């Protein structure tokens, strides 16, 4: 990268399948782990940064997320821009199925991206809120280790909490 062409510095991020993404430095600095890496190694901007636990699919979504939010922040901090940013987040999450949502959380956690992680965790909470115990087990891949008698006993402790739960149709 020569000084003459480097108007905006570019950084290369490499996903776990070795697919590489070139992004503006400003975007790369939104990634907590990348920012920390550069603080510790200020000269290491030539090599691609390996993001071992992040798939191409997640990485491209996250890059788009960063681009959009940087653009929102650059405009102003009015409530209408805030509403647009929230609407963007809602659309982004809507497009993610349960599996992808979990992968994104793992990626955001690994990349140390607090706002994104916060938004995704809230999205999962909203998704499972009114769901049955079975749905939640399937969502998180949890095996039921209660015996039928034990489960009935735990359920009876708060039977009223089972009223009005969404039916499992998915």
């Amino acid at each position, binding site marked *: 990268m020569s000084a003459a062409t480097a108007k905006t510095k570019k950084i290369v991020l490499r996903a776990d399948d070795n697919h590489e993404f070139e992004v503006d430095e400003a975007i790369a600095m939104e990634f907590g782990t990348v920012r920390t890496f550069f603080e510790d190694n200020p000269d290491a901007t030539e090599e691609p940064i390996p993001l071992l636990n992040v798939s191409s699919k997640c990485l491209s979504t996250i890059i788009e997320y960063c681009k959009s939010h940087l653009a929102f922040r650059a405009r102003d901090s009015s409530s209408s821009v805030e509403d647009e940013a929230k609407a963007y987040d809602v659309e982004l999450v809507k497009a993610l199925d349960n599996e992808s949502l*979990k992968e994104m959380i793992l990626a955001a956690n690994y990349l140390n991206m607090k706002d994104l992680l916060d938004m995704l965790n809230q999205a999962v909470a909203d998704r*499972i809120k009114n769901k049955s115990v079975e749905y939640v087990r399937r969502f998180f891949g949890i095996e039921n280790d209660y015996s039928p008698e034990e489960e009935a006993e*735990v359920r009876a402790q708060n039977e009223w909490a089972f009223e009005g739960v969404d039916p499992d149709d998915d």
Partner: protein
Amino acid sequence: MANLPLDSIADILSRLPVRHLLRFRCVSKLWRSLIDDPDFIQLHLRHSLKSHTNQTLILKNSELHAANLACLGLFAKLEHPLMSYHQGIKILGSCNGLLCIRNIVEDLAIWNPSTRKHQILPSLGSCNGYVYVYGFGHDPITDDYKLVKIIQLGRVDGKALDSEVKVCSLKRNRWRRIQDIPCIFSFPGANGVFANGALHWVLTQKVQLSEENVIVALDLGSENYREVPQPEYKDKRFQLNVGVLGGCLCAIANYGDVQVDLWAMKEYGVKESWTRLFSVASEDVIGFLRFVKPLAYSRSGDQILLEYDNINLFWYDLKKKKKVNDVRVPGMPLSDETEICLQSLVSLDVNRRQHNGEDNKDIKKMDDFLSEGFKLVL
């Protein structure tokens, strides 16, 4: 299948209302241990406080009615654990999701309406002929909940009041006497307000030849009294009450029912941190501007819910600097007392760290991981 680590699951669950968490105890034994764990309960509580969520508005007439503050259209009747003898009950205080209540014969209970658990406190018997007030709050040092009763025994003319102060805690479950409030001249007119580990009452003290309002704090940890510095008021001809909003102690100055100023002590104990949040004038409200009490912040933090004259509610918008909405919901019961109660998992079980054998492996795993991230910082 991507599997989320336990700390992600704890973060997600800490955002859920109590009802769903109680149901999700059935998901697995590990989830039950997590949801029942005191450190997770604190995490959940801290999240509610920070995000102004999980707040219940309780309206009281001869019965209790509750609605989620975020959804004031749906009031449900609350069944409380005391005998009401057709007289209803009084709410003595609300702290971290626990309510302290009493009935007409002075039965007392600490009750978590969200988990539907309660503990009866020993009765002190009725103090016929005596004037008394209560206060209910949390002692962060022993992580215990305390009910304080101040009983006015009598007055020796011209001198300070004779009173008796007693405390009963959830863990110890018995009444004991503690030191009296030093040199008070008039008796507190209302139950204490809990903020920052202490209960607060407004008293008057004789200062040279006049009487002045004093805010007295009883620290629930040390059980000592101190005076809380007040704001620099420009005009001192008002009636003073204290309240709490978003965890901050508030001073409510009522100028002859014509104007009410609400001050919040942003940094507890620091006189300079008193901030006048707003003023409300009597022409802004319908009815009389008496007994203004701040209740809660809206989820955005931009609006404050206030009660006045004991039965009316309105929202004040801090950004627009004016009253915005009277709260008038069809089917909303009339009430003579309002309270805000958090929905929390706070447990009344004082032996909550005891588990039976087969859970120990999971508890150890969870204790190890929770001790890194979620131990309550005192």
